[in-house]
């Protein structure tokens, strides 16, 4: 029974902590959040948006005055990661939207992260500067060179403290390796290599080498007319540096071992659940497409998200998942409308808590769901400005599926499908979560007594 940090939902009450972003209802497209990621210590929280910007928040150290509160997250660094580009050969614009951010484990004072748009991956170094040299012999303080006739003494510059400045600089640019749209990146536990995946291919990179990458998976058919599935996500195993998985639009996950051969077209394991014939519909294929795959921290399990459910797989069993959680089963009868309004194509992500006892994913109406694997409980919470009084406890929400709607329940037809939570992240060590609505980032914390 897990308690304390990463405890089950039966122990934990969630409180509003902070919300970042504009209050306007009129959302600027560039401000739409497209990815959210904590770093390995949880001290830093990065977001990427459609405008190609990365914003990093840093947690303030816990204050002795308020031991009940974990530190707040404040803006640490903001930079433009990607700009829109134009592919002249294909007459196509390349969007600057940040599809994924992945942090590298910290090795020295600086922090490193990988950010990617549809075509190009970049390695960014984020470093602090809190001292600067002053007292140059030949230069004025503003940098202009002094008239040599006025220089009569010799002095050596010394470092003096200055206001903290956080600088982000691009250290590597990994370009021109993907014909199709990059959907995910994953850093290896060896901290030397990483994977990038597009619809049909997966490339292995060395973090130091930008002018070439090694293609290790290629599912492009010789005749594109025979295309039946695409790659939707890829992830390295958290501690086995030779193992990775990739998910497909057909609902399968393939595990590959890089020791077996240089090209990993043949999988070592294939995870697939046979489809329930009772649930057949026009849209069966769309809703079985996997939008996210995440290993547990332990490396024993992996979680997949498809349109209606979250599934937990034991790596030792390929035939079916060990656990299945319905996120919003009431949408199954609405698939046709969701197809018409494009919502059926939404790609929801999912995440584990620190000790793998709880999983979380988003839904519509700014609802997000948590599933406690141990207690077999689930809860629906809402990220909204109405519940944004500091430290106010979030009340569980309920969607009424039957004819009778109880008080405080919301009916399926009243759900706002424009308010979707696609990206969520869980602090690796504490019960702090980051939930992205369209253009706002909500931070919730466990209520501490």
């Amino acid at each position, binding site marked *: 029974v897990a308690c304390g940090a990463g405890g089950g939902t039966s122990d934990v009450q969630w409180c509003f902590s902070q919300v970042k972003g504009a209050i306007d209802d009129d959302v600027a497209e560039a401000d739409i959040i497209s990815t959210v990621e904590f770093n390995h210590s949880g001290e830093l929280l990065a977001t990427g948006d459609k405008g190609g910007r990365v914003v990093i928040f840093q947690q303030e150290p816990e204050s002795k005055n308020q031991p009940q509160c974990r530190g707040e997250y404040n803006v640490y660094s903001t930079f433009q990661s990607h700009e829109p580009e134009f592919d002249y050969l294909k007459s196509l614009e*390349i969007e600057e939207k940040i599809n994924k951010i992945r942090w590298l484990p910290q090795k020295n004072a600086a922090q490193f992260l990988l950010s990617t748009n549809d075509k190009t991956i970049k390695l960014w170094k984020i470093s602090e500067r809190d001292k600067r040299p002053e007292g140059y012999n030949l230069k004025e303080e503003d940098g202009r060179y002094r008239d040599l006739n006025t220089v009569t003494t010799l002095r050596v510059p010394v470092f003096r403290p200055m206001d903290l400045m956080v600088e982000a600089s691009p250290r590597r640019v990994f370009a021109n390796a993907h014909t199709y749209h990059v959907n995910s990146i994953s850093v290896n536990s060896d901290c030397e290599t990483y994977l990038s995946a597009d619809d049909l291919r997966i490339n292995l990179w060395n973090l130091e080498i930008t002018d070439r990458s090694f293609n290790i998976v290629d599912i492009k058919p010789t005749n*594109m007319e025979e295309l039946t599935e695409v790659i939707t996500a890829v992830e390295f195993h958290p501690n086995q540096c030779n193992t990775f998985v990739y998910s497909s639009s057909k609902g399968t996950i393939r595990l590959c071992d890089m020791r077996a051969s240089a090209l990993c077209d043949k999988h070592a394991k294939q995870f697939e659940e046979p489809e329930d014939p009772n649930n057949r519909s026009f849209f069966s294929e769309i809703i079985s497409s996997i939008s996210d795959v995440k290993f547990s921290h332990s490396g024993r399990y992996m979680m997949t998200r498809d349109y209606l459910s979250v599934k937990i797989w034991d790596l030792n069993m390929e035939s079916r998942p060990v656990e299945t959680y319905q996120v919003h089963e009431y949408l199954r009868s609405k698939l*046709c409308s969701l197809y018409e309004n*494009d919502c059926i194509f939404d790609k929801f992500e999912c995440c584990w808590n620190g000790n793998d006892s709880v999983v979380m994913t988003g839904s519509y109406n700014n609802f997000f769901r948590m599933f406690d694997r141990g207690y077999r409980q689930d809860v629906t919470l809402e990220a909204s400005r109405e519940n944004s009084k500091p430290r106010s406890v979030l009340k569980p929400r309920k969607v009424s599926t039957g004819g009778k709607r109880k008080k405080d329940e919301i009916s399926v037809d009243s759900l706002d499908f424009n308010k979707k939570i696609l990206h969520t992240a869980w602090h690796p060590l504490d019960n702090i979560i980051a939930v992205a609505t369209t253009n706002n980032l909500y931070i919730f914390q466990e209520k501490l007594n």
Partner: protein
Amino acid sequence: MEVNVEARRILAVSISKLYASRTQRGGLRLHRSLLLSMVMRSARDIYHSSRETEGQTSEEPMETSSKEGCDSEITEDKENMSPTKQSRKRRGKASAAPDFLPSKRARLEPGEERYAAPMGSWRFDPPPTHIAHQGADLHQRSRDRGITGTMVQALRSI
């Protein structure tokens, strides 16, 4: 009838989505196009097979005796079917191109009908009563066969 209307509506919606996706920023998304094409294929299969059933039902008195023969003949290529039988199925509403398809789609000239095989050969399945109960057959076909027609044109441009 309802099935046919639903399939036709989904086909129309799908085609408009496919055309709209050509102009969106970032270019055609392969994943989305693939999913759209799968839905379109299912809808098209249902649409065509329900129209075939309509044609079948209206001519039943004349065809019941030869239905056994029909099955095996239809699995052969259509060129070997007698033109008169073929033209009976295709006259009237069935011969006009569906109005939701773009006007540039190739139309069947009267003399070319017997070479027409919109989806290759298929067995005569019992008429579908509801989209949800199509059974494995249609979906299995759509899973096995690749993308054809307008989708190929769209995807070749990638």
